[in-house]
C-alpha cells in the first residue's frame, strides 16, 4: 500500500518514542522537587503527613523513573540508529551537553538508589533530606543539558560550515546557543508545573471519591501553591519565548500564528480554519497581541510567512498545537491561582468565601493533571514539527539525516508494542501499589494515627 520510506518511518518511530518518554521524563524531572518540598515541610512543621507524602510519592516516582530511564536509553541509542547522519554532525558540534547529561543522570541514579533505601537509616531526618538534593539537581540538570541540544537544533551556533564541512567548533557556544535560555527555562518550569498538577490531580481525585482525610487536603494545598508559582513563571517565560522566536526563528512564530503578511500592529490569531488561499476564517483575533508578544510594543513589525520560500516552512497545523499549549497553560494558571486564593484567609481577599474544596473545583483540578500532560505533549510536538523541514535549522534537513536502512517499519511495529506493554503495565503497577496500600493503612501502620481516627 505504502512505498517504503525510511525517513517517514524514522520520523514516526522517533515521535512515538519521544512522546512516550516525555510522559515519564516530565514527571521524572518534576517529582524530585515536589518530594523534596514535601519532606522539607515534614521536617520544618514536624508534620508526619508531609513526610509520608514524600515517602509515598517517592515510591511511585521510582516506577516512573524506571520507565523514563529505559525509554531514555532507547532514545539515546535510537538517535544513532535512525538518524546516523544527524548524530555524526551532532557529535562534532553538540556532543558536550549530551555527554554531560549522562553524568547528571549518573549522579541522580546513585543518589536515588541511596535515598530510597535509607528512610530509616539515619538518626537525623535532615540527613535523609539532604540526600534528595542531589536527585533534584541531577534530574533538573539532565533536563537542562538535553534541552540545550534541542536548542542547538533550533538555533545552531558555535561552528562554521565550509563546503559542507563543520569546522571551527566551539562546544560552549553551541551549548549556550540563543535558544538555550528560553527553551531550557520553559522546559524545566513546565516539568515542575505538570508534575505538580498530576500530583494535585491524585489528591483531588481522592477527595472527590469521598475521602475527607487531612492528608489529601494537605497534599492538594501544597501542590496547588507550588503549581500556581510554576504556572505564573511559565507564563512569564512563555512571553520571553515569543520574543526569542521573533528574533531567531520568525518563521516558526509566523507558522504558529498563521501570520502571512509582514506587518506591525499584528493581531494574535486564536483557533480558526485556514482556507486553500491561506485566508483565516472563524478565528478569534486579539488586536496588537502578536506584536506585543514578539516585541513588547504594538508597533513591532512581525515577519510573515510570505517572506520565506514555501519548501522551508513547517506544516501550518502547528498553529493548533501552539494554541492548545497556550490554552492549557492559561487553564492551569487560572485553576491553581483560584484555588490558592480561595484558601487564603485574608480579610481583603474577595474570593475567600468560595470553597476551594467544592466538587467543581476538585473536578477542575483532577482534570488538570492529564490536561497538563497534554499541554506538554503539544508543546513538544509544536517545537519539533515547527522546525520542519530541518533537523538542524538551516544546516541539515530531516531527510538528509535519516537512515537508509531497510526494516525501520518492522522496528516501528516492535517498539509500538513495547511501549504499549510498558504503558499498560506501569499504569497497573502504580494503581495497584497505592490501591493495595491506601494511605489510611499506612498512617496506622507507621503509628502516625490510631485505628479509626
Amino acid at each position, binding site marked *: 500500500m505504502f512505498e517504503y520510506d525510511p525517513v517517514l518511518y524514522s520520523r514516526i518511530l522517533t515521535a512515538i518514542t519521544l512522546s512516550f518518554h516525555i510522559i515519564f521524563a516530565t514527571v521524572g524531572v518534576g517529582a524530585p522537587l515536589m518530594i523534596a518540598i514535601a519532606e522539607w515541610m515534614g521536617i520544618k512543621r514536624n508534620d508526619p503527613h508531609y513526610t509520608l507524602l514524600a515517602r509515598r510519592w517517592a515510591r511511585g516516582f521510582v*516506577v516512573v523513573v524506571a520507565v523514563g530511564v529505559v525509554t531514555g536509553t532507547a532514545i539515546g541509542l535510537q538517535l*544513532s*540508529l535512525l538518524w*546516523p547522519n544527524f*548524530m555524526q554532525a551532532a557529535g562534532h558540534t553538540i556532543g558536550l551537553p549530551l*555527554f554531560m547529561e549522562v553524568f547528571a543522570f549518573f549522579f541522580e541514579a546513585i543518589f536515588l538508589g541511596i535515598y530510597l533505601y535509607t528512610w530509616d537509616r539515619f538518626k537525623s531526618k535532615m540527613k535523609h533530606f539532604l540526600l534528595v538534593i542531589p536527585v533534584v539537581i541531577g534530574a533538573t540538570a539532565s533536563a537542562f543539558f538535553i534541552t540545550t541540544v534541542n536548542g542547538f537544533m533550533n538555533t545552531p551556533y558555535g561552528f562554521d560550515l565550509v563546503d559542507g564541512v563543520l569546522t571551527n567548533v566551539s562546544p560552549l557556544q553551541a551549548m549556550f546557543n540563543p535558544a538555550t535560555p528560553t527553551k531550557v527555562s520553559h522546559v524545566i518550569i513546565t516539568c515542575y508545573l505538570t508534575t505538580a498538577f498530576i500530583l494535585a490531580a491524585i489528591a483531588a481525585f481522592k477527595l472527590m471519591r469521598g475521602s475527607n482525610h487531612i492528608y489529601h487536603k494537605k497534599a492538594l494545598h501544597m501542590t496547588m501553591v507550588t503549581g500556581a508559582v510554576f504556572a505564573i513563571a511559565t507564563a512569564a517565560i512563555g512571553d520571553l519565548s515569543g520574543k526569542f522566536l521573533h528574533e531567531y526563528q520568525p518563521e516558526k512564530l509566523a507558522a504558529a500564528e498563521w501570520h502571512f503578511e509582514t506587518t506591525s500592529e499584528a493581531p494574535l490569531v486564536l483557533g480558526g480554519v485556514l482556507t486553500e488561499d491561506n485566508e483565516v476564517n472563524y478565528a478569534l483575533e486579539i488586536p496588537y497581541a502578536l506584536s506585543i508578544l514578539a516585541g513588547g510594543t504594538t508597533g513591532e513589525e512581525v515577519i510573515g510567512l510570505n517572506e520565506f520560500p514555501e519548501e522551508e516552512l513547517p506544516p501550518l497545523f502547528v498553529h493548533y498545537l501552539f494554541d492548545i499549549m497556550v490554552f492549557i497553560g492559561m487553564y492551569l494558571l487560572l485553576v491553581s491561582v483560584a484555588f490558592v486564593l480561595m484558601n487564603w484567609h485574608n480579610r481583603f481577599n474577595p474570593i475567600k468565601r468560595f470553597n476551594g474544596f467544592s466538587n467543581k473545583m476538585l473536578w477542575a483540578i483532577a482534570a488538570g493533571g492529564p490536561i497538563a500532560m497534554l499541554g506538554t505533549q503539544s508543546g513538544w510536538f509544536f517545537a519539533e514539527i515547527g522546525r520542519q523541514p530541518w533537523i538542524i535549522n538551516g544546516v541539515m534537513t530531516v531527510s538528509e539525516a535519516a537512515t537508509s536502512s531497510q526494516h525501520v517499519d518492522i522496528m516501528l511495529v516492535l517498539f509500538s508494542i513495547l511501549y504499549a506493554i510498558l504503558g499498560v503495565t506501569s499504569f497497573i503497577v502504580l494503581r495497584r501499589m497505592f490501591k493495595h496500600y491506601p494511605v489510611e493503612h499506612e498512617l496506622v501502620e507507621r503509628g502516625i494515627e490510631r485505628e479509626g481516627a
Partner: protein
Amino acid sequence: MSYELIGITVLWTFLYGYLIVASIDFGAGFFSYYSRITNNKHKVHHMIQRYLSPVWEVTNVFLVFFFVGIVGFFPDTAYYYGSALLIPGSISIILIALRGSYYAFATYGSKDSHLYTFLYGGTGLLIPASLTTVLTVAVGGYVSVEENHVQLLYGELFTSIYSWSVVALAIVSVLFISGSFMTFYAHKAGDQPALDLLRKYALAWSFPTIIACVIAFFGMNQRNPSHFQNMTDLSWLYGLSVVFFLAAVILIWKRKRYGLAFIFVMLQFATAFFAYGAAHLPYLLYPHLTIYDGVTNDAMAISLIIVFIAGLLLLIPSLYLLMRLFLFDTNYVKGHEADKKA
C-alpha cells in the same frame, strides 16, 4: 597521549566497567530465575534482591555513558554503526527496556510474579548475546560499505562460527562473573545456604568460560589475521588472564578469600579485555574506520576530557558512598535493614 587514544581508553574502561557490573546484574537475574524453578528460591532470592535494588540504574548508566561518549569522541561511529546495526541495536534496546522496567515493576510494585522473574532472568542472557554483535561486527567482514550506504551482512553474521563463539563467550562469562561476585556477597552476608548454592554456580561456569575464551581467541585467527597477530603480540596479557582465572577458581574451590577471588576474576577480564582492545587499534570498524579518521575536532575533544575529569570527581565520591552504604555495610548486607525499604 593523543586525544584519540585518551578518548578510546576512557570509553573502553567504561565498557569494561559495564561488562563487570552488568554481568553481575544479568547473571543475578538468571540465578534468581533458575533457583526459583529448581525450588531454591528461598535461599538466594532475597540476597540477590538486596544487592540489586539500589544499583540497577547505575549499571544502566555505564552503557549509556559508553554509547553517548563514543558518539562524542568519534562521531563517525554514529554513521557507520548506526546505519548498520538498526536491527540488533533495536533488539538490544527492547530487551534492556523490558528488563529494566519489569525489574522495577517486580521490586517496587511489590508483587512477586513468575512472569516478571522469567522476563528478568531471560533478558539477562539475551542482552549480552545481542550486545556482543557490536564487538563482532567491529572485527570486520560483516558490514558492506558502498557509496553512502552501510549495510550489515546478516547471512555472514548468522553463519559465522566466530560470531557464535563470541555469543557463547558472553553468556558463560556473565554467569561466571556473576556467580563469583554473588558468592562473595553471600559470604559477606553470612548466608551459608546461599553461599553453597552460588559457589556451585560459580564453579560450574568457570571452565566453560575459559574454554569459550580460548575458542574465541583462536577463532580470531580465521576471522581477522592481522587482529589475531596483534593479539598474539600481547599474549603475555592473555597468559596473565589465565593465571588470574586459575587463582580465582582455586580460591573459590578451597572456600577461601572470596573477595580476593572476585578481584582476580575482575583482573582476569581486565587483562583479556584490554589486550583485545589494544589489539583492535587503530580500528573502530575494521577496515573502514580508525580512531584517527573518526575522531571529533580538538575543541570538542578537550572539552569532553575536561567534563570527563570533572564528572569523575563528582561520581567517585558518590559511588563510594553508595558502596559503603549497600555493599560494605555489614548490617545492610546481612539483611537487617532489608525490610525497611522505601
